[in-house]
């Protein structure tokens, strides 16, 4: 028994075992994604940047109500349209993105079909230099926020 223990101790087998793992990995394929050049394609359900479709929005404010941290501000007023019908017009639809936790509850609350507000834009590059200016979305930003970015071709790294 003691001999076996000595055998193990003196031959350093356990240490060589460990070295063999790192040694093996030295030659294995690396998993690094070279970020700005290569990008990982987000999944279809990926919760990223907000988009809003003003046409579809019925101004029900459910998204603002359901937001756990109250970062959606909606103002609207009634207006007669060309046909003389009273319609709701958005004054303001702001999302204070700097506090957003991307829980998607606003999208879930939206009663329109398809959704008027959604996060599945696959946009995640939202770094900004200014918290209040860049991460505060008004209607203009919400409806076309870097819309072109979404379709910008990039080297897609397959998942997994």
């Amino acid at each position: 028994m003691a001999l076996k223990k000595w055998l193990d101790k003196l031959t350093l087998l356990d240490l060589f075992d460990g070295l063999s793992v790192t040694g093996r990995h030295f030659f294995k394929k690396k998993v690094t994604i070279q970020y700005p050049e290569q990008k990982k394609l987000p999944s279809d359900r990926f919760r990223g940047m907000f988009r809003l479709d003003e046409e579809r929005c019925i101004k029900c404010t459910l998204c603002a109500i359901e937001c756990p941290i109250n970062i959606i501000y909606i103002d609207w007023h009634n207006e007669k349209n060309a046909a003389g019908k009273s319609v709701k017009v958005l004054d303001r639809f702001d999302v204070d993105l700097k506090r957003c936790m991307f829980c998607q509850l606003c999208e879930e609350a939206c009663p329109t079909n398809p959704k008027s507000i959604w996060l599945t834009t696959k946009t995640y590059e939202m770094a900004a230099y200014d918290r209040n200016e860049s991460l505060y979305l008004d209607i203009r930003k919400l409806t076309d926020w870097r819309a072109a970015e979404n379709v910008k071709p990039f080297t897609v790294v397959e998942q997994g």
Partner: protein
Amino acid sequence: MKVLTPTVLTYVKVVLLVAVVPAIVGFVIVLAERRIMGFMQARLGPNRVGPKGLLQGVADLLKLVTKEDITPARAEKAVYFLAPVLAVIPALTALAVIPFGPAIRIGKVRTPLWVTDVNIGLLFLLAITSIGVYGIILGGWASNNKYSLLGGLRSAAQLVSYEVPMGLALVSVLLMSRSLSMVEIVHRQQHLHLWFVFPGLVAFFLYFVSGVAETNRNPFDLPEAESELVSGFNTEYSGVKFAFFFLGEYAAMIVISCVAVTVFFGGWLPPFPHVAALRFLHVVPPFAWFLIKTGFFLFCYIWFRSTFPRYRFDQLMALGWKWMIPIALANIVVVALAILATPGRSNGLFLLSYIFGGLFVLMYLLAKLRQKLTRRERLAAIPASVSE
């Protein structure tokens, strides 16, 4: 060429050594370490600065030089300033006695590839490298920081513990080489057609482990111990002073590797120089052989770092005193006996090589077998632990 007298040449070599080694450290080893560690960790490592990340060393150096140089209030100013210097200078000085290769001829000038061949080379090395640790101890103490102090104290203990087995391991080599001169040691290996690593297998192992410990590298990086002491002795250091510590650590690594190559691996000699079948190896110049071997040991350093956990302070001491020193002493006796007992003296070394080699292979195979058996046992012992 009257200008290039041996004295002048020596100065040239000194300047080269002091200027070139830091450059190598900066540009090659730092990058190599990070790249190799990265590769072992399934990632790429730094590859952004310059082509393939080759200029990472420059970037690191620039960063360190431009950083604010902080001196903590109530630090021992003079010592605090001196400590990094003390960490670098001995390591660089030690390189003076290392023979990087035999004499070469450039044009009409013929000069050996060492700064000086002191006849007490090995002793000089031991003495000078142990000074380097003072830099760490004093730096830790002078920082007036509890973490640094603990790091410095650890370093002191480590130094005392590991100087001894290192010295003892080298003593057994002295028995084989009969000389303290580094050049003479290499010549002796050439003459015997035998690298001292074979008869000195145990000694080499002890030497290298002690060397890793002396340079404060993983798994013995206790004075630094990033996750425990934050950064240990150099917590308070920044900028150029930190760069000096950095340099000192890597220079010490180089020294340890160079000594390992010179003493155990035949210095600039190619493997088995007398075997006719391996003649083609002589194509590679001796100096390159030296570099390749040194590079291998540096690689081992990095390999160890990326593989092993860190010892604890008291365990490190126990390892040094309870294992390495007794084994080193026993090894000296064995080597001495082998040399004395066999006729012709040097034949004992061959005998010893066979014994050590055979024993090691045998034990390794046995242990491997045992490991296979016990692993199956262990997995079977835990119910349903292995998925189908």
